[in-house]
């Protein structure tokens, strides 16, 4: 199951889709809109996120990543759903679920998928702050909270000039 959808993500659908009699382990990652984000001394409040994609390429890339995960790990079934449009605090923007015979490979495959999705799939978020307007998030290379490329903590926007006031 690979989907880009406009409405809420129903995680139960993903888990049902990956159920498999050869598998004893399912791992699901759910990414959701964080309302409160610590940034240095300050805490920023997010009103909502808005996602857009290059749909055709995003679907193609997601399929390629899922295929690669099935090659690298004994993933028997997978489900990847990304929501587009407005996503409010605590709502899910993405869910990635895999089933494998044993658990360590499920954790590895799910983590690799979400890390790689965040680097290689053409989907973008626009963060709408309660007090600071909106900005498209374009993480500069090397400034990513995952260990996919460099283990530096925190996403950083490209530059101050990327910020636009609403």
């Amino acid at each position: 199951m690979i989907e880009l959808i406009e409405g809420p993500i129903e995680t139960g659908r993903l888990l049902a889709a990956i159920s498999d009699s050869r598998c004893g382990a399912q791992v699901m990652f759910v990414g959701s809109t964080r309302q409160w984000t610590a940034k240095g001394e300050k805490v920023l409040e997010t009103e909502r996120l808005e996602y857009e994609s290059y749909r055709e390429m995003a679907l193609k890339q997601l399929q390629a990543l899922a295929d690669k995960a099935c090659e690298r790990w004994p993933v028997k079934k997978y489900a990847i759903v990304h929501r587009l449009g407005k996503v409010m605090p605590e709502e899910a923007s993405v869910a990635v679920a895999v089933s494998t015979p044993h658990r360590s490979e499920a954790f590895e495959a799910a983590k690799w998928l979400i890390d790689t999705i965040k680097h290689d799939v053409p989907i973008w978020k626009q963060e709408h702050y309660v007090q600071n307007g909106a900005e498209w998030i374009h993480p500069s290379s090397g400034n990513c909270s995952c260990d996919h490329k460099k283990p530096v903590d925190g996403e950083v926007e490209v530059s101050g000039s990327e910020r636009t006031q609403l």
Partner: protein
Amino acid sequence: MSANSVLVEVLLFAGAAEKVGKRSTSFQLEPGDTIENLQRVLGQQYPDLEPLLGISRWAVNSEFVDSSYSFRSDMQIALIPPVSGG
């Protein structure tokens, strides 16, 4: 502009679409022109886009390509600024 020049449409997304003020833009390119040429022309036309151009990738027909890629006709070209899905 030669007789063989091609009209190329470039898809723009997210912060790049915001800077340019539209979701696609067209250029007349010569046969043999590369992504590198296109990127230079785009930067000259939209100086605000420069910082983002420097850290963006390019895709042709939904696949990432490098800057030495040269154009043929019937291609869907997209500027892919650093992604932030998830």
